[in-house]
């Protein structure tokens, strides 16, 4: 007999209480050093307790349950620390894409390991020359018998240095238009020929990496989907990414999805109290707006997720969520800077950092969510063209063999 959602919820509540450590209130602590190992251990706990991969197929280590069970678990998990960082990108983007396009052997080899916290994954799509034009990639793979030989470079991969595998999009055919000459590979990060460099961000953090490939050998069995049809896989991966970053993935477990998804709402309240602005009419307008936006954000995730699940909204509607999440982050941090006033400029050096300092430093990185995971501009293209059906933008590289296309610096 199947367990109902309510029964599942009750059992989860008890298990969480006995097994998981308390939640980390401060979102910045979730970017601390050593956090990745903590999360691997937390994910292992979920696995051991039988709560890992609630919506993943049972055949590959998941529970195979409908999304309502995941929502119940996420609600119950709110008071506890969870492997938020494994949600995104490993579970909700990479593992999700493997579920859709991986071969049976690939799924058996990787999905259970992922759900045990043993494999962290990363997407290897963007390139230094490419920006939003992911299909315009120049990293190449040349076939040599049963292996492909990779050369080139990828960038903006989140936490690649501490990850184990990646899905890597490369060009395998230069004589066809750009979308038709790409192949998606499973790529082991730590192997000869792969060099990973961390990129320092404006706030001093090191979340992103650039990878350099020098004659890296990849077996043909690590091709995901068909050879030269990697764009189909990448498109699905991007759909999963939009849903995940927007907060609508069924594969995430726990409330915080995406970095800084809290949007600093709590930080704002904390700061307002710290600055004694509780009765300042203008500050009250700002905090009221920020808090209202949090409700809108949650409601929108529910509406769009349900719409996509029931087929009322096209799958590309995830772009609406991503766009809202990113623009909401822009606005919330702007509200924070405005609230902080003079305190945004300078602060007493203290540990832990004051809310003003956190906000002010976060403002440097405000566009992060608007750039990563498909820029706001790309989301607006998707919404207008694929959700609303407006005419496609003119692309100068359509139907032209890729070797003839104009590129940056070319």
């Amino acid at each position, binding site marked *: 007999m199947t367990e109902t959602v309510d029964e599942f919820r009750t059992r989860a509540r008890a298990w969480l209480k006995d097994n998981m450590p308390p939640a980390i209130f401060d979102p910045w602590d979730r970017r601390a050093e050593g956090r990745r190992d903590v999360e691997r251990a937390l994910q292992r706990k979920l696995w051991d307790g039988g709560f890992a991969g609630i919506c993943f197929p049972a055949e590959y280590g998941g529970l195979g349950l409908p999304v309502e069970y995941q929502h119940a678990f996420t609600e119950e998990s709110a008071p506890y620390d969870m492997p938020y960082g494994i949600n995104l990108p490993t579970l909700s983007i990479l593992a999700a894409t493997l579920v859709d396009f991986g071969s049976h052997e690939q799924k058996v080899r990787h999905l259970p390991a992922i759900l045990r916290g043993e494999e962290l994954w990363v997407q290897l799509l963007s390139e230094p020359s490419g920006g939003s034009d992911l299909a315009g990639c120049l990293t190449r793979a040349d076939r040599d018998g049963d292996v492909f030989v990779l050369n080139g470079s990828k960038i903006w991969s989140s936490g690649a240095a501490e990850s184990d595998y990646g899905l890597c999009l490369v060009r395998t055919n230069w004589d066809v238009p750009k979308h038709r000459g790409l192949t998606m590979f499973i790529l082991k990060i730590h192997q000869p020929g792969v060099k990973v460099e961390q990129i320092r961000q404006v706030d001093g953090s090191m979340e992103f990496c650039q990878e350099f490939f020098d004659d890296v050998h990849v077996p043909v069995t690590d091709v995901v989907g068909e050879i030269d049809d990697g764009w189909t896989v990448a498109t699905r991966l991007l759909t999963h990414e939009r849903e995940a970053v927007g907060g609508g993935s069924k594969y995430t477990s726990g409330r915080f999805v995406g970095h800084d998804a809290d949007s600093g709402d709590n930080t704002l*309240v904390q700061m*307002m*109290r710290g600055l004694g602005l*509780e*009765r300042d*009419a203008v*500050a*009250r*307008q700002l*905090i*009221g*707006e920020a*808090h*209202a*936006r*949090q*409700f*809108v954000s*949650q*409601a*929108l995730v*529910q*509406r*769009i997720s349900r719409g996509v699940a029931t087929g009322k909204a096209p799958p590309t509607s995830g772009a*609406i969520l991503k*766009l*809202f999440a990113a*623009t909401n982050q822009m606005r919330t941090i702007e509200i924070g800077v405005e609230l902080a006033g003079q305190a945004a400029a300078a602060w007493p050096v203290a540990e832990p950092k004051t809310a003003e300092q956190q906000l002010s430093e976060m403002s440097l990185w405000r566009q992060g969510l608007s750039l990563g995971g498909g820029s706001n*501009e790309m*989301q*607006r*293209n998707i*919404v*207008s*063209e694929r*959700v*609303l059906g*407006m*005419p496609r*933008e003119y692309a100068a590289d359509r139907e032209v063999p890729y070797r003839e296309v104009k590129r940056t610096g070319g």
Partner: protein
Amino acid sequence: SMLVSEADGGGSFSRHGILDAVLVAEEMGAAVAPGPLVPTNVVAATISRHGTDGQKAAWLPGLLSGELIGAWVAGDGAIVEAGAQADVFLVTGADGAQRIVAAADATVAPLGGLDLVRRFARVDVPVGVGESIGGDGERELLIAVTLQCAETCGVIQRIFDMTLEYMGDRYSFGRPISSYQALKHRMADNKMYVEASHAVTSAAARAVADEAADVAVQVSAAKSYIGALATEMIQDCVQLHGGIGVTWEHDLHLYLRRATVNRATYGTPAAHRDRIATALVGAA
């Protein structure tokens, strides 16, 4: 009315009357229908919830059949929707005490206004007249704002659809104007606004239906998000229509009038943001 219990002669298509009323409100918005949506619903709901048998017998049948019109006089009564048309007033004092007052016992002065079909009046109710009734104006406000937001959702959905269609039909420089990226990106934003408005309104309606603990904040979140966004989005659609958008012949202005009035009444967005702040950091 869908906010009146079945025992009192009301009824609803689903468990929660407010969820059905929200659907009706959206339809009214899409058609910029004139009817007194908020006032009659608020008055009937309060009589059904708190009224004596006598009060119910006196007013509910008429309100339900549409023969009688109710209006809600909150605060100083300076701007009361359907005030000049109403047969009965629900009066909420500054202290939250509520009364049912027959229209004949109040002084009513019709006002001019932006909405061409939905009218307002100044209503002065003498001290002491009318019969006391329960409630304190808070649930009345929640119902009013939720219905109002739903109506505005209907307005902006209609305007959005109208504009999208227009942009496909209209050519400029040999291309449909829907092919211009700058305009496409604005429509993408507008789509996001419409979806977000629907979403937060539905959430607020569910919170009202469930009498959720944070219902006041949820409803105020809806109003403070939708209020000025709706008028701004309609203005953008006027802009996308070009010159025709500011002519009397085109319906756009009817929707803009309605959205502006909805923004300004039952608490401005600013007032609702302040309510949220009160929930977060205490009263000002």
